[in-house]
């Protein structure tokens, strides 16, 4: 099977597993909605302030829950399964990219559900032309999935990995958070979203290169 054939097969397998378990749709998404609802209680009912912080809260929730999506139980391989894949000669980078691709779709779906919820809960003043910020948002979803998948691989098989992985990689995902959120913020000031889109795209590229370099050592480390 070709490299891209392996990638597609891994992504398909993860999505089928997600459809069966419903981990993201039934657990992570409702939890994300609850997280979006908690801040207004902590800030008291200040509509102007909530309207201002809504988009920022959306990005914080997206960052933290993207890690949970990448670390979901249905996307974790047991050691014997890893050993079998290794014996079959599966390319570790194809597995990593396939997993990141399926996570990207799920993170994108999560963000697509959280954004209208944020609009309902926080009533932000979205600037004209806000749909143009969807491109950096989609690129950020890809980056968050890549960084989450890398974290999942580094911590594979360790106890407490669901806490450990976000600690390791959440700081590395900050450029995605900055680029994604500032793209929307720059619209009212007539600032171009291009620099922020490029920042997110460059981070995605750097993460993909890092994945290609460390895929094989990670395979060995997780044994």
């Amino acid at each position: 099977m070709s490299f891209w054939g392996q990638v597609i097969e891994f992504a398909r397998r993860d999505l089928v597993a997600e459809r069966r378990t419903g981990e993201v749709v039934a657990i992570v998404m409702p939890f994300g909605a609850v997280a979006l609802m908690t801040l207004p209680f902590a800030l008291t009912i200040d509509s102007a302030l909530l309207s201002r912080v809504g988009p920022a809260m959306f990005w914080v929730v997206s960052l933290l829950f993207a890690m949970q999506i990448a670390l979901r139980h249905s996307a974790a391989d047991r050691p014997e399964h890893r050993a079998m894949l290794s014996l079959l000669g599966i390319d570790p980078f194809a597995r990593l990219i396939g997993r990141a691709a399926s996570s990207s779709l799920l993170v994108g779906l999560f963000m697509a559900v959280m954004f209208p919820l944020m609009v309902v809960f926080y009533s932000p003043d979205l600037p004209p032309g806000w749909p143009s910020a969807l491109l950096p948002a989609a690129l950020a979803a890809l980056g968050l999935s890549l960084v989450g998948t890398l974290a999942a691989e580094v911590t594979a098989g360790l106890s407490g990995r669901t806490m450990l992985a976000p600690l390791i990689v959440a700081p590395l995902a900050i450029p995605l958070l900055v680029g994604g959120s500032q793209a929307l913020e720059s619209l009212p000031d007539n600032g171009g979203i291009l620099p922020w889109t490029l920042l997110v795209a460059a981070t995605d590229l750097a993460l993909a290169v890092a994945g290609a370099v460390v895929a094989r050592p990670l395979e060995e480390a997780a044994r």
Partner: protein
Amino acid sequence: MTKIQVMLGLAAVALAGGLVLALNAPIDALQGEFSRIMHLHVPASWLAFLAFGVTAVASIMWRIRRTRAWDRRAAASAEIGVLFTALSLATGSLWGGAVWGTYWDWADPRIATTALMFFVYLGYLALRSASPDAESAAARSSILGIIAVVQVPLVYFSVNMFRSLHQGQSIRPDGATMPGGMLVAMLVNVGVFTLVYFALLAARTDVMRQEEAARALEPAAGEAVRPPRFDEVPDV
């Protein structure tokens, strides 16, 4: 007296000398006595960069050689780096509180990037402690140790790349931006802290080696259970 004890003793003496020099160095006309924090803040920051650089090099060496010594150096250096990054953040915050009027400024890229670097290396240490054995810890953390070092140049050059409250580099190709006495005291303290780093690295690496040797002597699970010897059972 062992070599490590000699190194630690020399480091302690050098620290005392550096302190005396810092207390007698010229002070900034505007900042007054607060400017003396520089003699602690700059060397601590330099040491953090050095320590994380050594962690990356030792991680690469572990991936090539696969010897325990390189892994111990990488881990020990990361521990020291985290300690001195915390010191750098604390002294920088105190200095900022006195001079800028704020302990933390989110618009300052160097503070923010240093804090991120601190948390990434805390994660590095957490990853090591969560790994079930030394080999697994080395295999996993060496990858993170190599990737995470990209933050060091980002932190260092952040004051040049973005507008910031933080002052720029003190030593530039066109000359230093501070008087000679102040510069000498700062550079001497950078040297002193470098000596402290190597002394701490040697000591911590040795402690890790001894801990591993002690663990190797511990009985494995099941070794304490002796199989029954029927020849010891008295006839009844």
